[in-house]
Protein backbone atom coordinates (compact mmCIF):
# COMPACT_ATOMS: atom_id res chain seq x y z
CA UNK A 1 0.00 0.00 0.00
CA UNK A 2 1.51 3.34 -1.06
CA UNK A 3 1.03 6.46 1.04
CA UNK A 4 -2.23 8.26 0.39
CA UNK A 5 -0.89 11.49 1.88
CA UNK A 6 1.30 14.39 0.86
CA UNK A 7 4.14 13.13 -1.35
CA UNK A 8 5.89 16.39 -2.10
CA UNK A 9 9.66 16.29 -1.89
CA UNK A 10 12.78 17.64 -3.58
CA UNK A 11 14.49 16.18 -6.64
CA UNK A 12 17.36 15.05 -4.41
CA UNK A 13 14.96 13.26 -2.08
CA UNK A 14 13.17 11.62 -4.99
CA UNK A 15 16.52 10.34 -6.31
CA UNK A 16 16.72 8.14 -3.22
CA UNK A 17 13.82 6.11 -4.60
CA UNK A 18 16.07 4.95 -7.44
CA UNK A 19 18.68 2.33 -6.65
CA UNK A 20 21.78 1.15 -8.47
CA UNK A 21 20.86 -1.57 -10.94
CA UNK A 22 17.22 -0.50 -11.25
CA UNK A 23 15.26 -0.61 -14.47
CA UNK A 24 14.09 2.95 -15.01
CA UNK A 25 11.60 4.09 -17.63
CA UNK A 26 11.33 7.72 -18.70
CA UNK A 27 8.13 9.35 -19.86
CA UNK A 28 7.64 11.76 -22.75
CA UNK A 29 9.00 11.05 -26.22
CA UNK A 30 12.34 12.03 -27.73
CA UNK A 31 12.75 15.71 -26.76
CA UNK A 32 9.16 16.20 -25.67
CA UNK A 33 7.97 16.30 -22.06
CA UNK A 34 11.14 14.47 -21.02
CA UNK A 35 11.62 14.13 -17.23
CA UNK A 36 14.91 15.94 -17.80
CA UNK A 37 15.36 17.50 -14.36
CA UNK A 38 14.81 14.14 -12.67
CA UNK A 39 17.15 12.37 -15.10
CA UNK A 40 19.88 14.91 -14.38
CA UNK A 41 19.26 14.37 -10.67
CA UNK A 42 20.01 10.66 -11.06
CA UNK A 43 23.27 11.59 -12.81
CA UNK A 44 24.07 14.04 -10.02
CA UNK A 45 23.37 11.31 -7.44
CA UNK A 46 25.73 9.05 -9.40
CA UNK A 47 23.41 6.09 -9.75
CA UNK A 48 25.13 3.15 -11.45
CA UNK A 49 24.18 0.15 -13.54
CA UNK A 50 20.69 1.31 -14.46
CA UNK A 51 18.75 -0.11 -17.38
CA UNK A 52 17.25 2.99 -18.98
CA UNK A 53 14.10 2.47 -21.07
CA UNK A 54 12.25 5.00 -23.18
CA UNK A 55 10.09 4.68 -26.29
CA UNK A 56 12.20 7.12 -28.32
CA UNK A 57 15.43 8.34 -26.74
CA UNK A 58 17.15 11.62 -27.22
CA UNK A 59 20.67 12.40 -26.06
CA UNK A 60 19.98 11.33 -22.47
CA UNK A 61 20.99 7.98 -24.00
CA UNK A 62 24.64 8.99 -24.14
CA UNK A 63 24.58 11.07 -20.96
CA UNK A 64 23.63 7.91 -19.07
CA UNK A 65 26.11 5.69 -20.93
CA UNK A 66 29.10 8.02 -20.78
CA UNK A 67 28.59 8.74 -17.07
CA UNK A 68 28.22 4.99 -16.40
CA UNK A 69 24.83 5.63 -14.83
CA UNK A 70 23.29 3.17 -17.29
CA UNK A 71 24.78 -0.10 -18.44
CA UNK A 72 21.93 -0.91 -20.79
CA UNK A 73 19.38 0.95 -22.91
CA UNK A 74 16.01 -0.28 -24.15
CA UNK A 75 14.21 1.70 -26.85
CA UNK A 76 12.81 1.72 -30.38
CA UNK A 77 14.77 4.69 -31.71
CA UNK A 78 17.65 6.86 -30.57
CA UNK A 79 18.23 10.24 -32.15
CA UNK A 80 18.06 13.91 -31.39
CA UNK A 81 15.93 14.99 -34.34
CA UNK A 82 16.36 15.45 -38.09
CA UNK A 83 18.75 18.35 -37.71
CA UNK A 84 21.21 16.64 -35.37
CA UNK A 85 20.98 12.95 -36.30
CA UNK A 86 21.98 10.08 -34.06
CA UNK A 87 23.92 10.85 -30.86
CA UNK A 88 27.56 10.13 -31.69
CA UNK A 89 28.70 8.71 -28.37
CA UNK A 90 25.64 6.43 -28.17
CA UNK A 91 26.62 5.14 -31.62
CA UNK A 92 30.17 4.47 -30.54
CA UNK A 93 29.06 2.58 -27.45
CA UNK A 94 26.65 0.36 -29.38
CA UNK A 95 29.04 -0.22 -32.28
CA UNK A 96 31.60 -1.37 -29.72
CA UNK A 97 29.12 -3.63 -27.90
CA UNK A 98 25.65 -4.08 -29.41
CA UNK A 99 24.50 -6.08 -26.39
CA UNK A 100 24.09 -2.90 -24.35
CA UNK A 101 21.18 -1.87 -26.56
CA UNK A 102 17.88 -3.74 -26.76
CA UNK A 103 15.88 -2.67 -29.78
CA UNK A 104 12.12 -2.84 -30.26
CA UNK A 105 9.65 -1.22 -32.60
CA UNK A 106 7.70 1.68 -31.16
CA UNK A 107 4.45 -0.25 -30.75
CA UNK A 108 6.02 -3.46 -29.50
CA UNK A 109 7.87 -1.43 -26.86
CA UNK A 110 4.55 0.22 -26.05
CA UNK A 111 2.76 -3.12 -25.79
CA UNK A 112 5.39 -4.28 -23.29
CA UNK A 113 4.54 -1.34 -21.04
CA UNK A 114 0.84 -1.79 -21.68
CA UNK A 115 1.11 -5.43 -20.57
CA UNK A 116 2.89 -4.24 -17.43
CA UNK A 117 0.24 -1.63 -16.83
CA UNK A 118 -2.52 -4.24 -17.20
CA UNK A 119 -0.93 -6.66 -14.78
CA UNK A 120 -0.50 -9.15 -17.61
CA UNK A 121 2.80 -10.95 -18.29
CA UNK A 122 2.45 -10.55 -22.06
CA UNK A 123 0.40 -8.99 -24.86
CA UNK A 124 -0.04 -9.97 -28.51
CA UNK A 125 0.79 -7.67 -31.42
CA UNK A 126 1.05 -7.82 -35.21
CA UNK A 127 4.27 -5.81 -35.15
CA UNK A 128 7.74 -7.39 -35.47
CA UNK A 129 6.39 -10.21 -37.69
CA UNK A 130 8.96 -11.18 -40.32
CA UNK A 131 11.57 -8.74 -39.05
CA UNK A 132 15.04 -9.39 -37.67
CA UNK A 133 14.04 -7.48 -34.54
CA UNK A 134 12.02 -10.53 -33.53
CA UNK A 135 15.14 -12.71 -33.33
CA UNK A 136 17.08 -10.26 -31.22
CA UNK A 137 14.48 -9.73 -28.50
CA UNK A 138 12.73 -12.08 -26.08
CA UNK A 139 9.54 -11.64 -28.15
CA UNK A 140 8.05 -14.90 -29.42
CA UNK A 141 5.62 -16.10 -31.99
CA UNK A 142 2.20 -16.96 -30.63
CA UNK A 143 -0.98 -18.22 -32.28
CA UNK A 144 -4.43 -16.91 -31.43
CA UNK A 145 -6.28 -19.69 -29.55
CA UNK A 146 -9.49 -18.79 -31.43
CA UNK A 147 -8.40 -17.91 -34.99
CA UNK A 148 -4.95 -19.52 -35.17
CA UNK A 149 -3.63 -16.19 -36.52
CA UNK A 150 0.17 -15.92 -36.28
CA UNK A 151 1.11 -13.07 -33.96
CA UNK A 152 3.94 -11.91 -31.75
CA UNK A 153 3.81 -12.06 -27.94
CA UNK A 154 5.88 -9.43 -26.15
CA UNK A 155 6.80 -9.82 -22.48
CA UNK A 156 5.58 -7.23 -19.98
CA UNK A 157 7.94 -4.45 -19.02
CA UNK A 158 7.55 -3.74 -15.30
CA UNK A 159 10.14 -1.08 -14.50
CA UNK A 160 11.37 -0.60 -10.97
CA UNK A 161 10.88 3.13 -11.38
CA UNK A 162 9.03 5.44 -13.77
CA UNK A 163 10.06 9.08 -14.15
CA UNK A 164 7.18 11.19 -15.42
CA UNK A 165 7.03 14.91 -16.10
CA UNK A 166 3.57 16.49 -16.33
CA UNK A 167 2.08 19.94 -16.48
CA UNK A 168 0.05 19.67 -13.27
CA UNK A 169 -0.29 17.37 -10.28
CA UNK A 170 -1.57 17.67 -6.73
CA UNK A 171 0.40 16.85 -3.61
CA UNK A 172 -0.88 13.28 -3.44
CA UNK A 173 0.09 12.54 -7.02
CA UNK A 174 -3.04 12.88 -9.12
CA UNK A 175 -1.57 14.09 -12.40
CA UNK A 176 -2.88 15.75 -15.55
CA UNK A 177 -1.20 15.95 -18.94
CA UNK A 178 -1.78 18.56 -21.65
CA UNK A 179 -1.21 17.59 -25.27
CA UNK A 180 -0.24 14.07 -26.34
CA UNK A 181 0.04 11.61 -23.45
CA UNK A 182 2.86 9.67 -25.19
CA UNK A 183 3.41 6.52 -23.05
CA UNK A 184 3.43 8.25 -19.68
CA UNK A 185 0.25 6.66 -18.41
CA UNK A 186 1.45 3.15 -19.27
CA UNK A 187 4.83 3.91 -17.63
CA UNK A 188 3.18 5.10 -14.42
CA UNK A 189 0.82 2.15 -14.30
CA UNK A 190 3.45 -0.47 -15.08
CA UNK A 191 6.24 0.65 -12.76
CA UNK A 192 6.57 -0.35 -9.12
CA UNK A 193 7.73 3.11 -8.04
CA UNK A 194 6.57 6.33 -9.69
CA UNK A 195 8.22 9.74 -9.45
CA UNK A 196 6.13 12.58 -10.86
CA UNK A 197 7.69 15.97 -11.53
CA UNK A 198 5.27 18.74 -12.43
CA UNK A 199 5.46 22.21 -13.88
CA UNK A 200 3.01 23.18 -11.13
CA UNK A 201 1.61 21.51 -8.06
CA UNK A 202 -2.01 22.58 -7.79
CA UNK A 203 -4.55 22.19 -4.97
CA UNK A 204 -6.53 18.96 -5.11
CA UNK A 205 -9.63 21.08 -5.63
CA UNK A 206 -8.31 22.04 -9.06
CA UNK A 207 -7.85 18.37 -9.92
CA UNK A 208 -11.36 17.53 -8.74
CA UNK A 209 -12.88 20.29 -10.89
CA UNK A 210 -11.30 18.69 -13.98
CA UNK A 211 -11.33 15.05 -12.88
CA UNK A 212 -11.85 13.71 -16.39
CA UNK A 213 -8.45 15.17 -17.31
CA UNK A 214 -6.61 13.25 -14.59
CA UNK A 215 -4.62 10.44 -16.22
CA UNK A 216 -2.44 9.21 -13.34
CA UNK A 217 -4.15 8.48 -10.02
CA UNK A 218 -2.36 9.32 -6.76
CA UNK A 219 -2.41 5.72 -5.58
CA UNK A 220 0.28 4.70 -8.08
CA UNK A 221 2.57 7.64 -7.23
CA UNK A 222 5.40 7.70 -4.68
CA UNK A 223 6.87 11.19 -5.08
CA UNK A 224 5.69 14.55 -6.40
CA UNK A 225 8.24 17.26 -7.15
CA UNK A 226 7.39 20.72 -8.42
CA UNK A 227 9.93 21.58 -11.13
CA UNK A 228 9.07 24.51 -13.40
CA UNK A 229 10.81 24.09 -16.76
CA UNK A 230 11.47 20.53 -15.65
CA UNK A 231 11.86 19.31 -19.25
CA UNK A 232 14.15 22.12 -20.38
CA UNK A 233 16.09 22.13 -22.76
CA UNK A 234 13.47 19.70 -24.05
CA UNK A 235 9.92 20.96 -24.62
CA UNK A 236 6.79 20.74 -22.51
CA UNK A 237 3.55 20.91 -24.51
CA UNK A 238 1.83 24.26 -24.23
CA UNK A 239 4.44 25.58 -21.80
CA UNK A 240 7.76 25.98 -23.65
CA UNK A 241 9.36 24.93 -26.90
CA UNK A 242 12.61 22.94 -27.01
CA UNK A 243 15.81 24.98 -27.11
CA UNK A 244 17.20 23.97 -30.49
CA UNK A 245 20.23 26.24 -30.06
CA UNK A 246 21.04 24.35 -26.86
CA UNK A 247 20.90 21.12 -28.91
CA UNK A 248 23.21 22.75 -31.50
CA UNK A 249 25.72 23.64 -28.80
CA UNK A 250 25.54 20.16 -27.26
CA UNK A 251 25.93 18.41 -30.58
CA UNK A 252 28.90 20.56 -31.47
CA UNK A 253 30.67 19.64 -28.22
CA UNK A 254 30.05 15.94 -28.69
CA UNK A 255 30.89 15.80 -32.38
CA UNK A 256 34.15 17.57 -31.56
CA UNK A 257 35.15 15.86 -28.32
CA UNK A 258 33.16 12.61 -28.07
CA UNK A 259 32.89 11.26 -24.53
CA UNK A 260 34.88 14.21 -23.21
CA UNK A 261 32.26 16.48 -24.76
CA UNK A 262 29.53 14.61 -22.88
CA UNK A 263 31.53 14.95 -19.64
CA UNK A 264 31.98 18.66 -20.22
CA UNK A 265 28.24 19.03 -20.83
CA UNK A 266 27.49 17.18 -17.59
CA UNK A 267 29.92 19.44 -15.75
CA UNK A 268 28.19 22.50 -17.21
CA UNK A 269 24.60 21.45 -16.61
CA UNK A 270 24.67 18.93 -13.73
CA UNK A 271 27.70 18.90 -11.47
CA UNK A 272 28.80 22.51 -11.87
CA UNK A 273 25.45 24.15 -11.07
CA UNK A 274 24.75 21.58 -8.31
CA UNK A 275 20.97 21.75 -8.74
CA UNK A 276 18.47 21.99 -11.54
CA UNK A 277 17.34 25.42 -10.38
CA UNK A 278 20.94 26.63 -10.52
CA UNK A 279 21.25 25.15 -14.03
CA UNK A 280 18.18 27.15 -15.12
CA UNK A 281 19.88 30.25 -13.71
CA UNK A 282 22.82 29.63 -16.01
CA UNK A 283 20.35 29.55 -18.91
CA UNK A 284 18.78 32.81 -17.87
CA UNK A 285 15.22 34.00 -17.53
CA UNK A 286 14.89 35.74 -20.88
CA UNK A 287 15.93 32.65 -22.80
CA UNK A 288 13.40 30.55 -20.91
CA UNK A 289 10.65 33.11 -21.41
CA UNK A 290 11.35 33.22 -25.14
CA UNK A 291 10.67 29.46 -25.19
CA UNK A 292 7.29 30.15 -23.56
CA UNK A 293 6.45 32.72 -26.22
CA UNK A 294 7.30 30.25 -29.00
CA UNK A 295 5.08 27.61 -27.39
CA UNK A 296 2.14 30.00 -27.27
CA UNK A 297 2.41 30.51 -31.02
CA UNK A 298 1.90 26.76 -31.54
CA UNK A 299 -0.68 25.92 -28.93
CA UNK A 300 -3.69 28.17 -28.52
CA UNK A 301 -4.65 28.64 -24.88
Amino acid sequence: MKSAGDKRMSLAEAAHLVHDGDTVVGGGCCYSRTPWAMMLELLRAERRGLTLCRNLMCYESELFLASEAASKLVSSWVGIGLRWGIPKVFREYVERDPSIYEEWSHLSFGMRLMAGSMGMPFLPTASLLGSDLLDRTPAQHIRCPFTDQLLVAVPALVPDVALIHVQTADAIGNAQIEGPAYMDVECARAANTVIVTAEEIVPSEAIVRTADRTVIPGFVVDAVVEVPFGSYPHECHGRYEADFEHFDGYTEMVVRDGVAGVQAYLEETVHGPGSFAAFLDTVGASRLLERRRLARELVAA
Partner: protein
Amino acid sequence: MTEATPVELMTIAGSRLLRDGGVVFAGVGAPLEASVLAKRLHAPSLTIVLEGGSIGPRMLPGRLPVSTNEMRAAHDAYMLTSINDLFLYGQRGHYDYGFIGAGQLDQYGNVNTSYIGDPDQPKVRLPGSGGANDIVSSCREVMIMTRHEPRRFVERVDFITSPGYLSGPDSRQKAGLVRNRPVAVVTDMALLGFDEETGRLRLDALQPGVTEEQVHANTGFELLVSDAIGELAPPTDQELAELRWLRDGITSDIPRTREVTSAP
Protein backbone atom coordinates in the same frame (compact mmCIF):
# COMPACT_ATOMS: atom_id res chain seq x y z
CA MET B 1 10.95 29.92 -59.51
CA THR B 2 14.33 28.16 -59.19
CA GLU B 3 14.48 24.56 -60.36
CA ALA B 4 13.34 21.76 -58.07
CA THR B 5 16.04 20.07 -55.99
CA PRO B 6 16.18 16.24 -55.98
CA VAL B 7 14.49 16.14 -52.57
CA GLU B 8 11.76 18.48 -53.80
CA LEU B 9 11.19 16.29 -56.87
CA MET B 10 10.84 13.26 -54.61
CA THR B 11 8.58 14.99 -52.11
CA ILE B 12 6.24 16.35 -54.77
CA ALA B 13 6.03 12.97 -56.53
CA GLY B 14 5.21 11.40 -53.18
CA SER B 15 2.52 13.93 -52.41
CA ARG B 16 0.68 13.06 -55.62
CA LEU B 17 0.25 9.45 -54.50
CA LEU B 18 -2.05 10.41 -51.63
CA ARG B 19 -5.75 10.44 -52.48
CA ASP B 20 -8.18 12.82 -50.86
CA GLY B 21 -10.18 11.52 -47.91
CA GLY B 22 -7.58 8.97 -46.83
CA VAL B 23 -5.64 8.63 -43.60
CA VAL B 24 -1.85 8.69 -43.88
CA PHE B 25 0.58 7.72 -41.13
CA ALA B 26 3.64 9.75 -42.08
CA GLY B 27 7.22 9.63 -40.85
CA VAL B 28 9.11 12.84 -40.17
CA GLY B 29 10.94 14.61 -43.00
CA ALA B 30 10.03 14.10 -46.66
CA PRO B 31 7.03 11.77 -46.02
CA LEU B 32 5.52 14.32 -43.67
CA GLU B 33 6.24 17.19 -46.08
CA ALA B 34 4.67 15.23 -48.94
CA SER B 35 1.58 14.60 -46.84
CA VAL B 36 1.21 18.21 -45.77
CA LEU B 37 1.68 19.32 -49.37
CA ALA B 38 -0.99 16.90 -50.60
CA LYS B 39 -3.40 18.18 -47.98
CA ARG B 40 -2.80 21.80 -49.00
CA LEU B 41 -3.21 21.10 -52.70
CA HIS B 42 -5.27 18.21 -54.01
CA ALA B 43 -6.30 16.31 -50.86
CA PRO B 44 -7.86 18.79 -48.42
CA SER B 45 -9.62 16.02 -46.49
CA LEU B 46 -6.51 13.90 -46.06
CA THR B 47 -6.01 13.07 -42.39
CA ILE B 48 -2.36 13.04 -41.34
CA VAL B 49 -1.43 11.03 -38.26
CA LEU B 50 1.95 11.25 -36.56
CA GLU B 51 3.78 8.89 -34.23
CA GLY B 52 3.64 11.07 -31.12
CA GLY B 53 -0.17 10.88 -30.94
CA SER B 54 -1.17 13.71 -33.27
CA ILE B 55 -4.26 13.18 -35.47
CA GLY B 56 -5.13 15.65 -38.19
CA PRO B 57 -2.55 18.35 -37.48
CA ARG B 58 -2.02 21.31 -39.82
CA MET B 59 1.54 22.56 -39.91
CA LEU B 60 2.57 26.12 -39.29
CA PRO B 61 4.57 27.12 -42.40
CA GLY B 62 8.20 27.68 -41.54
CA ARG B 63 7.90 25.62 -38.41
CA LEU B 64 7.68 22.05 -39.65
CA PRO B 65 8.46 19.58 -36.87
CA VAL B 66 11.97 18.28 -36.33
CA SER B 67 10.52 15.19 -34.65
CA THR B 68 6.97 13.85 -35.09
CA ASN B 69 6.29 14.07 -31.37
CA GLU B 70 6.74 17.71 -30.64
CA MET B 71 4.38 20.68 -30.40
CA ARG B 72 4.94 21.66 -34.02
CA ALA B 73 3.61 18.25 -35.02
CA ALA B 74 0.55 18.78 -32.83
CA HIS B 75 -0.37 22.18 -34.23
CA ASP B 76 -4.12 22.50 -34.91
CA ALA B 77 -4.66 18.73 -34.58
CA TYR B 78 -8.16 17.32 -34.11
CA MET B 79 -6.97 14.88 -31.52
CA LEU B 80 -3.88 14.44 -29.36
CA THR B 81 -3.72 10.97 -27.86
CA SER B 82 -1.21 8.42 -26.59
CA ILE B 83 1.41 6.74 -28.73
CA ASN B 84 -0.04 3.28 -28.19
CA ASP B 85 -3.51 4.44 -29.17
CA LEU B 86 -2.15 6.09 -32.28
CA PHE B 87 -0.43 2.89 -33.41
CA LEU B 88 -3.33 0.66 -32.40
CA TYR B 89 -5.68 2.51 -34.76
CA GLY B 90 -3.24 1.30 -37.40
CA GLN B 91 -3.17 -2.27 -36.10
CA ARG B 92 -7.00 -2.16 -36.22
CA GLY B 93 -6.79 -1.26 -39.93
CA HIS B 94 -7.80 2.39 -39.92
CA TYR B 95 -4.83 3.80 -41.82
CA ASP B 96 -4.93 3.83 -45.61
CA TYR B 97 -1.30 4.79 -46.14
CA GLY B 98 1.93 4.30 -44.27
CA PHE B 99 4.65 6.60 -45.55
CA ILE B 100 8.19 6.08 -44.27
CA GLY B 101 11.81 6.86 -45.12
CA ALA B 102 14.56 4.24 -45.44
CA GLY B 103 18.24 4.09 -44.57
CA GLN B 104 18.86 1.01 -46.69
CA LEU B 105 16.40 -1.03 -48.71
CA ASP B 106 16.55 -4.07 -50.95
CA GLN B 107 14.83 -5.47 -54.02
CA TYR B 108 11.91 -6.78 -51.91
CA GLY B 109 11.33 -3.46 -50.23
CA ASN B 110 12.77 -4.64 -46.92
CA VAL B 111 14.04 -1.65 -44.96
CA ASN B 112 17.02 -1.45 -42.63
CA THR B 113 17.32 1.40 -40.15
CA SER B 114 19.17 -0.58 -37.48
CA TYR B 115 22.64 -1.83 -38.36
CA ILE B 116 25.04 -1.51 -41.30
CA GLY B 117 27.21 -4.63 -41.31
CA ASP B 118 26.91 -7.63 -39.01
CA PRO B 119 24.47 -6.71 -36.18
CA ASP B 120 26.78 -8.48 -33.73
CA GLN B 121 29.78 -6.44 -34.86
CA PRO B 122 28.18 -3.51 -36.59
CA LYS B 123 29.98 -0.99 -38.79
CA VAL B 124 27.30 1.62 -38.18
CA ARG B 125 24.47 1.88 -35.70
CA LEU B 126 21.43 3.59 -37.25
CA PRO B 127 18.58 5.24 -35.26
CA GLY B 128 16.30 2.18 -35.30
CA SER B 129 12.74 1.38 -36.21
CA GLY B 130 10.83 3.93 -34.24
CA GLY B 131 7.36 3.40 -35.69
CA ALA B 132 8.52 2.19 -39.12
CA ASN B 133 8.25 -1.52 -38.35
CA ASP B 134 4.74 -0.97 -36.97
CA ILE B 135 3.71 1.12 -39.96
CA VAL B 136 4.77 -1.50 -42.51
CA SER B 137 3.04 -4.18 -40.41
CA SER B 138 -0.31 -2.42 -40.32
CA CYS B 139 -1.03 0.41 -42.77
CA ARG B 140 -3.01 -0.77 -45.80
CA GLU B 141 -0.67 0.62 -48.48
CA VAL B 142 2.94 1.11 -47.51
CA MET B 143 5.02 3.69 -49.37
CA ILE B 144 8.70 4.36 -48.92
CA MET B 145 10.54 7.54 -49.83
CA THR B 146 14.29 7.75 -50.12
CA ARG B 147 17.12 9.27 -52.16
CA HIS B 148 18.14 7.00 -55.02
CA GLU B 149 21.74 6.02 -54.21
CA PRO B 150 23.53 2.68 -54.69
CA ARG B 151 24.50 2.55 -50.99
CA ARG B 152 20.82 2.71 -50.12
CA PHE B 153 19.46 0.33 -52.81
CA VAL B 154 21.23 -2.92 -51.94
CA GLU B 155 20.78 -6.54 -53.03
CA ARG B 156 19.99 -7.67 -49.50
CA VAL B 157 19.69 -5.44 -46.44
CA ASP B 158 22.04 -6.23 -43.55
CA PHE B 159 19.12 -6.28 -41.14
CA ILE B 160 15.37 -6.30 -41.71
CA THR B 161 14.05 -3.61 -39.40
CA SER B 162 10.83 -3.14 -41.39
CA PRO B 163 9.81 -6.01 -43.64
CA GLY B 164 8.74 -5.49 -47.24
CA TYR B 165 8.06 -8.66 -49.23
CA LEU B 166 10.89 -10.45 -47.33
CA SER B 167 11.95 -12.89 -50.09
CA GLY B 168 8.64 -12.82 -51.98
CA PRO B 169 4.85 -12.76 -51.45
CA ASP B 170 4.78 -16.29 -49.97
CA SER B 171 7.36 -15.46 -47.35
CA ARG B 172 5.47 -12.32 -46.38
CA GLN B 173 2.27 -14.34 -46.05
CA LYS B 174 4.04 -17.06 -44.09
CA ALA B 175 5.49 -14.51 -41.68
CA GLY B 176 1.93 -13.50 -40.76
CA LEU B 177 1.93 -10.20 -42.65
CA VAL B 178 -1.42 -10.86 -44.27
CA ARG B 179 -3.39 -7.69 -43.96
CA ASN B 180 -1.46 -5.11 -45.96
CA ARG B 181 1.34 -4.70 -48.47
CA PRO B 182 4.06 -2.40 -49.71
CA VAL B 183 3.00 -0.61 -52.89
CA ALA B 184 5.54 2.01 -53.90
CA VAL B 185 9.01 3.45 -53.47
CA VAL B 186 9.36 7.11 -54.40
CA THR B 187 12.82 8.50 -55.08
CA ASP B 188 14.43 11.55 -56.61
CA MET B 189 14.98 9.50 -59.80
CA ALA B 190 11.90 7.33 -60.17
CA LEU B 191 8.66 5.86 -58.97
CA LEU B 192 9.00 2.14 -58.28
CA GLY B 193 6.20 -0.35 -57.83
CA PHE B 194 6.19 -3.98 -56.72
CA ASP B 195 5.76 -6.94 -59.05
CA GLU B 196 2.93 -8.84 -57.40
CA GLU B 197 4.18 -12.29 -58.41
CA THR B 198 7.73 -11.99 -57.18
CA GLY B 199 7.41 -9.13 -54.67
CA ARG B 200 10.38 -7.44 -56.36
CA LEU B 201 10.76 -3.77 -57.10
CA ARG B 202 9.93 -2.58 -60.59
CA LEU B 203 10.69 0.70 -62.35
CA ASP B 204 7.31 2.24 -63.19
CA ALA B 205 8.09 5.87 -64.02
CA LEU B 206 11.05 8.24 -64.28
CA GLN B 207 11.46 11.64 -62.73
CA PRO B 208 11.68 14.36 -65.43
CA GLY B 209 15.03 14.32 -67.23
CA VAL B 210 16.20 11.03 -65.65
CA THR B 211 17.10 8.07 -67.90
CA GLU B 212 16.44 4.40 -67.29
CA GLU B 213 20.21 3.83 -67.34
CA GLN B 214 20.77 6.37 -64.59
CA VAL B 215 18.25 4.58 -62.40
CA HIS B 216 19.93 1.18 -62.95
CA ALA B 217 23.34 2.72 -62.25
CA ASN B 218 22.09 3.95 -58.91
CA THR B 219 20.37 0.71 -57.94
CA GLY B 220 22.48 -2.00 -56.33
CA PHE B 221 20.28 -4.85 -57.54
CA GLU B 222 18.54 -5.97 -60.70
CA LEU B 223 15.50 -3.73 -60.91
CA LEU B 224 12.51 -5.09 -62.82
CA VAL B 225 11.20 -2.76 -65.49
CA SER B 226 7.59 -2.03 -66.36
CA ASP B 227 6.36 -2.81 -69.86
CA ALA B 228 5.62 0.85 -70.32
CA ILE B 229 7.81 3.13 -68.25
CA GLY B 230 6.06 6.41 -67.61
CA GLU B 231 7.45 9.86 -66.96
CA LEU B 232 6.37 11.79 -63.91
CA ALA B 233 5.03 15.26 -64.63
CA PRO B 234 7.45 17.95 -63.50
CA PRO B 235 6.55 19.87 -60.36
CA THR B 236 4.20 22.74 -61.05
CA ASP B 237 5.13 26.23 -59.91
CA GLN B 238 2.30 25.96 -57.42
CA GLU B 239 3.62 22.71 -55.94
CA LEU B 240 7.11 24.12 -55.62
CA ALA B 241 6.00 27.45 -54.17
CA GLU B 242 3.73 25.74 -51.66
CA LEU B 243 6.40 23.26 -50.59
CA ARG B 244 8.98 25.98 -50.11
CA TRP B 245 6.56 28.15 -48.24
CA LEU B 246 5.75 25.23 -45.92
CA ARG B 247 9.42 24.60 -45.31
CA ASP B 248 10.69 28.13 -45.05
CA GLY B 249 7.61 30.12 -44.13
CA ILE B 250 8.58 32.71 -46.74
CA THR B 251 5.97 33.63 -49.31
CA SER B 252 6.81 33.61 -53.01
CA ASP B 253 5.17 35.41 -55.93
CA ILE B 254 2.98 32.45 -56.85
CA PRO B 255 -0.44 32.71 -55.24
CA ARG B 256 -0.96 29.91 -52.77
CA THR B 257 -4.03 27.77 -52.58
CA ARG B 258 -5.67 28.22 -49.22
CA GLU B 259 -6.29 25.08 -47.33
CA VAL B 260 -9.86 23.89 -47.51
CA THR B 261 -11.14 22.43 -44.29
CA SER B 262 -13.62 19.64 -44.62
CA ALA B 263 -15.43 20.62 -41.46
CA PRO B 264 -18.12 23.30 -41.09
